[in-house]
């Protein structure tokens, strides 16, 4: 039978509720902190067992702390997810109906794309055709921002991708809904959105960028692991394991671009 939770477990769970997702490095530090705060026995290599105790208790509520890999940095993350789809779960008040519809459309676009991205222009355009309630451009930008802030989407340079948190929670849903539009990574066998695809049309396997980096590391002449065709894409560098804490999921190596005016600048520009 399941073991009861101590205060250390509760603190761990609460922190996950507040943050939604934490990197495995953070999870390790948090595990230690929670045990030390409540004087519980701490064994550094027992994080997954520690989480199992919580998961056993969460099971009746269809909640779960699930582990998954980030498509951006290839590192492990832990997310607290919901697993139920019921009348009760649909009462969630975080987003309005049209905001959720926009999210679904964004997912459609991302899944439909070759490289797991959707441009802000495309998303803005589909906001015009929302069935529930139309959205103005500015409103749409605001909602997209909210999705990024709440860690459901990532954005860089006007391109939106599904966040690690989103993929961890929604993977099964997407496999069911999009079926054969969803492809698995040839290396890690998880769903692959941001990835490279084999140029050989009869092959067409997908590999996550970090998986590509790891797989072809040190090979000067990369070939597709499935069809053995030449791998035409540029091989990305292996990401350095992120040091303590930083939760940024952006792997952008590009220096910060020049700021461009936001849509609201016409309003702000009044000189007093």
């Amino acid at each position, binding site marked *: 039978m399941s073991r009861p939770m101590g205060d250390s477990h509760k603190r761990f769970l609460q922190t996950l509720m507040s943050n939604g997702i934490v990197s495995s490095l953070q999870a390790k530090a948090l595990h230690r902190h929670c045990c030390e705060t409540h004087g519980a026995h701490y064994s550094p290599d027992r994080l997954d067992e520690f989480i199992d105790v919580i998961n056993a208790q969460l099971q009746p509520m269809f909640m779960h702390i699930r582990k998954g890999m980030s498509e951006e940095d290839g590192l492990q993350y832990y997310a607290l*997810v919901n697993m139920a789809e019921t009348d009760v779960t*649909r009462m969630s008040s975080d987003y309005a109906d049209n905001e959720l519809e926009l999210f679904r459309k964004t997912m459609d676009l991302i899944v439909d794309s070759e490289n797991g991205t959707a441009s802000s222009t495309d998303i803005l355009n589909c906001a015009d055709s929302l069935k529930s309630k139309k959205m103005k451009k500015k409103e749409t930008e605001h909602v997209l921002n909210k999705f990024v802030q709440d860690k459901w989407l990532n954005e860089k340079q006007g391109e939106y991708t599904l966040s690690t948190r989103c993929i961890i929670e929604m993977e099964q849903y997407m496999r069911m809904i999009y079926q054969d539009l969803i492809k698995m990574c040839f290396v890690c066998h998880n769903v692959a959105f941001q990835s490279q695809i084999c140029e050989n049309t009869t092959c067409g396997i997908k590999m996550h960028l970090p998986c590509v980096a790891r797989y072809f590391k040190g090979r000067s002449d990369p070939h597709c692991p499935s069809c053995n065709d030449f791998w035409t894409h540029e091989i990305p560098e292996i990401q350095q394991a992120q040091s303590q804490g930083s939760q940024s999921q952006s792997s952008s190596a590009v220096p910060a671009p020049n700021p461009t*005016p936001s849509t609201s600048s016409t309003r702000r520009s*009044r000189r007093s």
Partner: protein
Amino acid sequence: MENIKIWMAWWSPEKGWDPLVYAYLKLVSPDLRVPCLHVIIVNGKKFCKYGPCSKLTGIVESKMCCIIILLHSLKQLESGGAVIQIKTTITLYKRAVSLMSDSRRRVSRGSQEESASHANGMGGRSRPDRAADTGDEDDGAGPSGIHEEDDDPARRREIRSQYRDLINSVQQNREDMLNPANNKLIDVLEEANKLFANVRQAREAALDAQLLVLATDLGREKASQLHAEGSSFDPSAFAEHLLSFMGLNRLEEEEDDQDGCLYGYLPPDAWQRLSKRAEYCFRTAPSFHYMLGSFLAEPPPPRQRVERQRKAPSKEAKRMMPTQLKKMEESHQEATEKEVERILGCLQSYYSDDPQSPISYYEFVVDPASFSRTVENIFHTSFLIRDGLARIYLDDSKLPCIAPVEEGEVEPGGAAARHQCVISVSPASWREIIEAFEIKEALIPTPKTLTQEN
């Protein structure tokens, strides 16, 4: 704790004292010396007292009909176990007054003796009974057909007007009333006492109640000023301490601070910083957020698959994009390209005139004489940005500026780190911009083809 409340309770010949008030009066022992405002009405006569309630118990035993008590400390009462429903409504007061007149009538009918003393209290205004002038201006709070001597409408009007004057003067001299150095509040109450001696009907009594509530409110404030125990708390000083905590950068401290101007600026994370510390005072439950299950599962529209198949051959869609777009434009309108080039020429020449000073984006694109030209300019300028021939950046005051990108900097296909943004402009905001930037003329001259057409 300074928890000051106004209480109101009533007494009736049938039921006696509201038990709760009675409990209170028993509770307050003479040595408590709680400053209260007591309003006691005995057989139509009203006494107001402001001070400790030591002598109150004596009065309780006499014939009172209505009492309003302003208590300084609710805590003392709660410790005695009495929980009082607090009400300060005029309706309640009216009820008390109607009870009062009821009992008064009963008294006058029942006993000659009482009636005599009663008439005495009225200041000798007894007149022969006459039929009630079924006053249509009476709001009906009292029973109809009152057998009373004082329903002269003119007199009642006068009383009401006097009350209104008194109320106005209290409202307008609020600060003065609150001044601990004077006794104006008591003066007002005494004046109201005089007026009340002639009040016979609910309508006038309601005005008296209004004045009383106003006065008790002031009394409450006055009491709170007088009875601050321990250190005082000054919100302004508090704000200053908070600003320091939030990391205020006090830039121009020497400057004159007396005109109420705020100097210095807060760092962007100021409130975050305060929140982080304040969270230790809260026991807020974390909340659980999720995406799965917040909407009904719906398969994507079927057209998607068709599209995908169509797209399939062009594996390099992404890399091809710029050329594809270019082709489209050429076929659609060659004019656009020419116009874009012309605008680039304008931008470059303004820039080379004085490369040091930034060119305001709005001043560049806005044509104060034509909204549609402005929109066209914005449209064409956007190609310069897209193609990496010009860049937009924000100056120190967060206003967008535009500058051409020098030859060497141009990256083919505008592949430089790119941001997208939506610019919306309406005739109203266009006019606002013209006004704000004081734009007198268009920096981009109207193209020749157009002027010829016009």
